[in-house]
């Protein structure tokens, strides 16, 4: 069981051109901003959109080649979970889940039995006789998942399965989904806006920006070497671009950084973790090779650390402890000095895409 897709299709001015491969038992997360084409890609895999060029292969069978071959959604053996679930409001939870087996030719009794099994596995068998309108958001999400899993699909597609949930429900449903995906033997593709979902649920992340793949890899890959500002923002790190020459990086937005790698030449990117940036009120006297001035634009408290947004050359986000904030009396508008050790700056050649 595996899925390989190379998809090219146009919708008005929008052009989607992406490749995707998913191994059996693994989950790929497709991450991207609004309108990047995530849903379109998923719909092409499900057979709800036809591709213009390329080929989609599920379990070794070509289901769309952009030309003569096109397998209808009902014959593709995929399961699809919509963002707002699209549960059938006129059927009970059990009937929703039994719909797939029934539609695929199982008997009424057998279908209901399968549905009960899947519901039990997801711990919501007690909801079997309710209507979708009578279950909570988190329960509805599980019902949608149960409905998609009940037909035993080779490919499970999820379009923002957690987006409609509130913060607490989200955590518990995410854990449930994590467990289900771990047990699930087929391929799974998960579309999401939320990097946390992607990191917790997926083995690999594909970042889609305006219809094209911007980066792809494990969460660690993305955090260490983000290829675009979007990816860097998602991963919570500072990404700076510039031109490297002789251990110095002349930044595109102004300013210069000393970097450890003396050999780096030409267009380059540099990543600085917010924790690696030190904030002080006066010019720092320490060994840090880089120091510059800036002004705080916003202060964000995040459980046990504070993210400080600073404009300057370069503008960055620094993370400090709440105690530091209290000591320094930093607030929006405060003029500060920033310093970073050269070894904390990970500079690498600009990926030529």
């Amino acid at each position: 069981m595996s899925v390989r897709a190379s998809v090219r299709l146009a919708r008005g001015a929008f052009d989607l051109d992406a490749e995707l491969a998913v191994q059996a038992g693994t989950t790929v997360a497709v991450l991207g901003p609004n309108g990047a084409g995530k849903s379109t890609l998923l719909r092409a895999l499900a057979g709800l959109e036809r591709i213009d060029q390329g080929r989609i292969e599920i379990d070794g069978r070509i289901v769309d080649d952009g030309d003569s071959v096109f397998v209808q959604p009902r014959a593709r053996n995929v399961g699809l979970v919509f963002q707002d679930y699209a549960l059938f409001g006129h059927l009970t939870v059990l009937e929703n889940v039994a719909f797939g087996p029934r539609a695929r030719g199982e008997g009424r009794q057998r279908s209901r039995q399968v549905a009960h099994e899947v519901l039990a596995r997801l711990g919501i068998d007690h909801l079997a006789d309710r209507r979708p309108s009578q279950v909570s958001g988190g329960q509805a999400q599980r019902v949608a998942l149960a409905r998609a899993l009940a037909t035993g699909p080779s490919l499970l597609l999820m379009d923002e399965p957690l987006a409609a949930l509130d913060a607490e429900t989200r955590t518990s449903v995410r854990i449930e989904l994590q467990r289900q995906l771990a047990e699930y033997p087929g391929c799974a593709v998960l579309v999401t806006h939320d990097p946390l979902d992607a990191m917790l649920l997926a083995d690999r992340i594909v970042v889609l920006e305006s219809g094209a793949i911007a980066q792809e890899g494990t969460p660690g890959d993305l955090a260490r070497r983000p290829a675009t500002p979007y990816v860097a923002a998602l991963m919570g790190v500072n990404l700076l671009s510039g031109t490297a020459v002789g251990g110095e990086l002349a930044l595109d937005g102004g300013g210069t950084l000393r970097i450890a790698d003396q050999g780096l030449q030409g267009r380059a990117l540099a990543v600085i973790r917010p924790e690696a940036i030190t904030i002080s009120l006066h010019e720092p006297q320490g060994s840090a090779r880089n120091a510059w001035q800036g002004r705080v634009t916003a202060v964000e408290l995040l459980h046990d650390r504070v993210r400080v947004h600073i404009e300057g050359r370069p503008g960055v986000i620094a993370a400090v402890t709440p105690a530091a904030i209290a000591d320094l009396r930093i607030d929006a508008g405060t003029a500060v000095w920033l310093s970073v050790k050269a070894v904390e700056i990970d500079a690498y050649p600009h990926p030529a895409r």
Partner: protein
Amino acid sequence: MSRPRRARAPWFLAVPGAVALAFLLIPLIALLAQAPWASLGGIVTSEAARSALLLSLVTSLSATAFAALVGVPLAWLLAREVLPWTGLLRALVLVPLLLPPVVAGVALLAALGRRGLVGQVLSDAFGIQFPFTTAGVVIAEAFVSMPFLIITMEGGFRSLSQRYEEAAATLGASAWTVFRRITMPMVGPSLIAGLVLCWARALGEFGATITFAGSFPGVTQTMPLAVYAALETDRSVAIALSVVLLAVSVSVLVALRGRYLRAQAS
């Protein structure tokens, strides 16, 4: 301490609303005031009235059923813009709504009469004739009332998100299963609204019926035709029959408890 939760209406809505209510209800009251209440029992239980009422119910329900059977699919085709020239077709499909009913009857005669465009073929080849038959009444009623069903159902299909149908398709359902088990149940409110409008129009149909199907007691003389005949001779009988017709239809509407207001799908 429980204050009324009912919203209060501002005067600029309450006043014209009351005017509209009076405008629509006063003629009704005036009509009822003229009804021969003393002899009402005798009139409505007369053989003629009973057979006309029965015929009206049978034909209007048959016309509604026929309209549902073919009109709902047409509404779907229009909503999904499957046909070319959907814009023009949609307007043409409403023509029976705009046609003076007598002209609709003439058009039906021209099409389905014994020497009509299609009627000739049906008559010569199969000996099928519609005028003067109860089937003809059903056709006349269906012709003038189907547009109501179509216009309502098209709106219903349009406002149903296609995601439900897509979800069903990915679950392995055939087009027929999707339509029967997902699409139709989900546009239920629109269907009820359309059926009620369609049935109401069929029940009151007069001009097209008399022109196309004729008027023969027990076969083609529906309630509105009986009312018209009675108007020529005895107004109070006509009013009594109208009151019966109204009582039947208003009770159906009340029993439906507003479900004929097309609610949003889903």
